[in-house]
């Protein structure tokens, strides 16, 4: 094994990791906290995976990670710049080098034919992502294809040529998909066929013991590596994804229990979640990119306590309860009392968020979630807002509104909600809420927008909720049309 470039410091968590990298079995004592990108480029000199940003925004570093589930390997695209090496134990890591065959795959060929590569720096990552998309086994759609591209920046093409690759690729991939048929169709190399058996053998090997206490708890790492990427390789870390019990979604009576390690993608694809929040797929597609959503967890979004946390805003309006655990105790508290101040939580350092529980809305309850950002996709909100409302005969019986980007915390709009209770849904009633709303929020000027803009957006998004959910009662024209 080529020695690690970083030589000066004492790494914690020296343990032996075993995983498959493309066709090769790797055993390494490289630190768990370094990111897969550095391991590939620096330790192994596999340079097809590129670094464009180290923060999940460009997709040049995209790799696939395959996990053995019920004797089948399920592949997800992830940003290797935010992926701790330690999590690869027992998994299959696929880079562009592992997708190359003697002839170009139909995906590679489509990119060549359509002229969809120019400087080429973004291209390997795109090939990996698109291959991951086609392996998934879902029906290929133009929208899905575009969403996959959405995780990549290309500064040379205008994306049109890339989008045009869709038809050519689809032609090669009929309804039947999955690893076996992909190998037959020359989309991925033959060695993929043996991966399940090889992984099964590897996963029996242990990765050794974690040194405690951990300085950092890492879930998806999509926030932590952006903030602390420089020091994580040298720190004691606890990779939560090695705790399988926090990865379930279960319905118990009228409550949905969601494990804190559930990723955005898993959440939005789960049938129970879709039942509870019918438009969830649409909302989640406006959050980050496929690669990030494959890694980012609900727990991370809540604990991260970013004032614009998109999922936390939804969960605040959903009347969620949080289950916090440490070694010897467990407690629950409503998410509305969890946030105390900027990045201050009602949580001790040793507590782990284990589960999020929310009631499944009844049929008379409506939900809407709004987000406005500079760029519609893969951007952080200027202001976001979630509303859960139950009306009876035009009267508001129950209402929960949360708003992000307007306070030091993801904000539950308690006073505004109190005001609305018992009101008839009319333009006047909504206008009457605005002074209360404006009192309740305290946005600041930052790169996401000026405070005056955010105040205006706060108003607009409340109007958006009501006009979207109750078009029969109020219209945008009622607010801004000629009187």
């Amino acid at each position, binding site marked *: 094994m080529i020695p690690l470039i970083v030589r000066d410091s004492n790494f914690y968590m020296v343990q032996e990791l075993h995983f498959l990298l493309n066709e090769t079995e790797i055993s390494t004592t490289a630190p768990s906290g370094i990111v897969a990108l550095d391991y590939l480029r620096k330790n192994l000199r596999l*340079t097809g995976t590129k670094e464009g940003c180290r923060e999940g925004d460009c997709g040049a570093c995209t790799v696939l990670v395959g996990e053995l589930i019920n004797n089948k390997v399920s592949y997800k695209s992830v940003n290797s710049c935010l992926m701790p090496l330690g999590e690869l134990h027992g998994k299959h890591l696929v880079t562009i080098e592992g997708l190359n065959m003697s002839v170009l795959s139909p995906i590679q060929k489509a990119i060549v034919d359509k002229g969809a590569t120019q400087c080429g720096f973004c291209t390997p990552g795109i090939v990996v992502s698109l291959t991951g998309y086609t392996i998934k086994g879902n029906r290929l759609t133009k929208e899905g294809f575009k969403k996959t591209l959405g995780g990549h920046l290309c*500064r040379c093409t*205008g*994306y049109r040529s890339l989008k045009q690759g869709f038809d050519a690729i689809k032609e090669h991939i009929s309804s039947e998909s999955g690893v076996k048929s992909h190998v037959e169709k020359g989309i991925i190399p033959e060695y993929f066929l043996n991966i399940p058996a090889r992984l099964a053998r590897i996963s029996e090997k242990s990765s050794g013991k974690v040194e405690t206490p951990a300085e950092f708890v890492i879930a998806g790492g999509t926030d932590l590596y952006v903030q602390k990427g420089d020091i994580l390789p040298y720190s004691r870390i606890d990779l939560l994804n090695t705790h399988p019990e926090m990865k379930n979604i279960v319905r118990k009576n009228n409550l949905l229990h969601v494990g804190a390690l559930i990723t955005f993608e898993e959440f939005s694809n789960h049938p129970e979640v879709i039942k509870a929040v019918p438009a969830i797929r649409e909302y989640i597609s406006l959050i980050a990119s496929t690669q990030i959503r494959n890694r980012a967890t609900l727990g991370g979004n809540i604990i991260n306590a970013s004032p614009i946390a998109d999922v936390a805003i939804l969960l605040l309006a959903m009347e969620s309860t949080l289950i916090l655990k440490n070694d010897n105790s467990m407690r629950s508290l409503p998410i509305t009392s969890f946030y105390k101040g900027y990045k201050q939580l009602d949580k001790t350092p040793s507590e782990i968020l284990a589960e999020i529980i929310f009631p499944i809305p009844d049929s008379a309850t409506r939900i809407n979630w709004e987000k406005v950002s500079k760029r519609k996709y893969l951007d952080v909100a200027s202001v976001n807002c979630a509303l859960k409302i139950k009306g009876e005969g035009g009267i508001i019986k129950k209402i929960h509104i949360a708003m992000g980007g307007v306070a030091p915390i993801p904000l539950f709009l308690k006073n505004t909600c109190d005001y609305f209770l018992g009101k008839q849904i009319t333009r006047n009633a909504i206008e009457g809420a605005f002074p209360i709303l404006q009192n309740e929020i305290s946005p600041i000027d930052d790169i996401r927008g000026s405070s005056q803009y955010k105040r205006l957006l706060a108003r607009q998004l409340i109007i958006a909720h009501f006009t979207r959910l109750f078009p029969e009662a109020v219209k945008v024209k009622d607010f801004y049309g000629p009187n």
Partner: protein
Amino acid sequence: MDRIDAASHTRGESLFVDDMPQPAGMLYASVFFSPVMHGNIQRLCLQDARSVKGVVAVLTWENIPGENQIGSIIQDEELLAQRKVHYIGQPVAVVVAESTEIARKAAKMISIEIEELPAVTDPKEAFEKGCIIDTPRTFVLGDVDSMWQKCDLVLEGTCDTGGQEHVYLETQRARATPLEGNNIRIYSSTQSPSAVQHHAAKILGLASHNIEVEVKRLGGGFGGKEDQATPWACIAALVARVTQRPVELVLQRADDMKMTGKRHPYKSDFKIGATKEGIIIAYEVKHYQNSGATADLSTAVLERTMFHSTNCYYIPHVRIFGVCCRTNLPSNTAFRGFGAPQGMFAIESALTKVAEKLHLPREEIQVKNLLAERKEFPYGQRAEHCSIRTVWESAETNYQFQKIRKQVLHFNQSHFETKKGLAVMPVCFGISFTTTYMNQASALVHIYTDGSVSISTGGVEMGQGLITNITTIAATALGINPGRIKVECTNTTRIANMSPSAASSTTLLNGNALLIAINQILDRLKTLLAQELSVFEKEKISIMNEKVFVDAHDTGWAWNQLIHAAHQKRICLSAHGFFATPKIYFDKTKEKGRPFAYHVYGAAIVEITLDCLRGSYDIDSVKIVHDLGRPLSKIVDRAQIEGGLAQGLGWMALEDLRFNEKGQLLSRDLATYKVPDAHFMPDNIEIEFLQNEKGTLGPYGSKAVGEPPFMYGIGVFFAIRDAMRAFRPENDFNFTSPLIPERILLQLYPEYIKQTLDKNKNLSG
């Protein structure tokens, strides 16, 4: 033909600077930069950094053996700050270590004491304080002053035009290796290998021939690596010289964004006079360019702003004033369009004001004032082979513009909070470096005895498709299979004194130099063939499909046989070609001349849908007619048009470059600075090529295509504005770019801003 390197790109096998195998003992450098905008360095404490295990050296200006100077046009830029700093991000010291991680960590341990001085970030403020670079310039046509009172209407306005970060996906990087003697080899991601060579020699106190610069490819450049790849390559060279070990310097994204310059923001004041029918009679504009801390290429960029200040319109009376204003920001630099976009944005804004005042659609004013053949530009050149009206009419008929306009009207009448907007953006762009002497290039051709061909030019492949174009030209000229041709990396030992790969001129200059070289060899080969075949007129001999023909007769001679015979007969199978664009000049004392070899024309129709409640928009479609001459490779040219368009749309409506009052970059990474993605770009992009070979000097009737399409993106600003006006016809909108959702919403609802602000004041009071 596919792009030459496309297949290897898709396989991740194309090598960028830091992908090449690492030489043993390589070191890694990290740059420590100024944390303040302006000040005197009092103390620089390097001890802590030096004592970090794994650190090999920490270098400052004192370690520079030659001259600490890298200014290209004006000598005002130090490689490493000596006594003063002028912007946040200015390199001060270089940490060299056994790994990047150590170098970065140690750089954080450097401390600096700076006596802060007052700083400016606004160009007009800098101008008022006398902080300017070079002297202001003025172009004059006719006599504006005497015309104002003859106009039916005279309107004034201001454009506040935003800058733009290049976001080449591959950040700045270089690798340098010490060679025997004093020599250094530099692998650089630069558009200007010769500039790197020249400055590295100067820094090291060596001759140019001691420095070899090699460039394989760039992961995007867009102008950002024309002048600003130089510092990093020079730093690498300095480290290699001092440590006598190979070294690599790769900027991380956030550092790249902080330390390197961007497209120039401008403030432009305009005054426009027209008849009531909308004929523009007089136009005056004053451009205040935010140049940043050093001259860099700013004076040349400003010049192009002035050249393109009337875009594709003929206005008989014009006065264009331009000045480079020195501010305490990273030095702004070349970026696709090179100043032209800012000039065009101002004239388009002025025309828009006229249209709005006259209650006419914008396009009616545009079409009434289009340039015509032989009309004079404000810089003295006359329009030749002017195809703008043909372009406009093709766009109108082929895309049924009037029908779209009607549909938009109808849509807007039947929708309240959703409005559509439409705009046409015609473009006229001059081709050549406006600095005349730079319009020269060389090429070197070797044919080996097995018939394979090696080509070197002074052009750099940066995704624009140069090597594909060069291969096409060579294969066509030699009459052989492209598979026989290899375009070499760009290297200063093979080609000397290169002009940068820029100004959309790389194929024009290098392609012509290549043809000159090839024709020399062909001439020798034909002389030989004439003897062998007893043909008296050489002109009758041609090579096609690897075979030799006399007139249309296949002589039975094949390429391999010909090359073999030539070698046996001791005929030189190598040639060097040199090209200089003819008939161009510019007299700066008169501000008149013929700076451009020719002009490229085109037009785009941009349609958007605006969500007037949320302030967000979708770009529905962009439909383009582009005068392309006879394209060498349609796939390459199409890609250039689409990519240029994407950057232009982003510049006008999305890419929000922001500094705070302390000069700190707020849009400092890709999380806070957004560039177009697959969703932002419309699925519906249509491009029609107008094949008008007249006037071009490009090889085989081709035309330059790198920059002009960028300016189609300007249309999106006016399309959004069109929709805003449909929603709020009574509001007064500004010309501040980029037109992001925030600016849209605040301008649609000014009355609510006041309301919420007042409320807010009450709260705090």
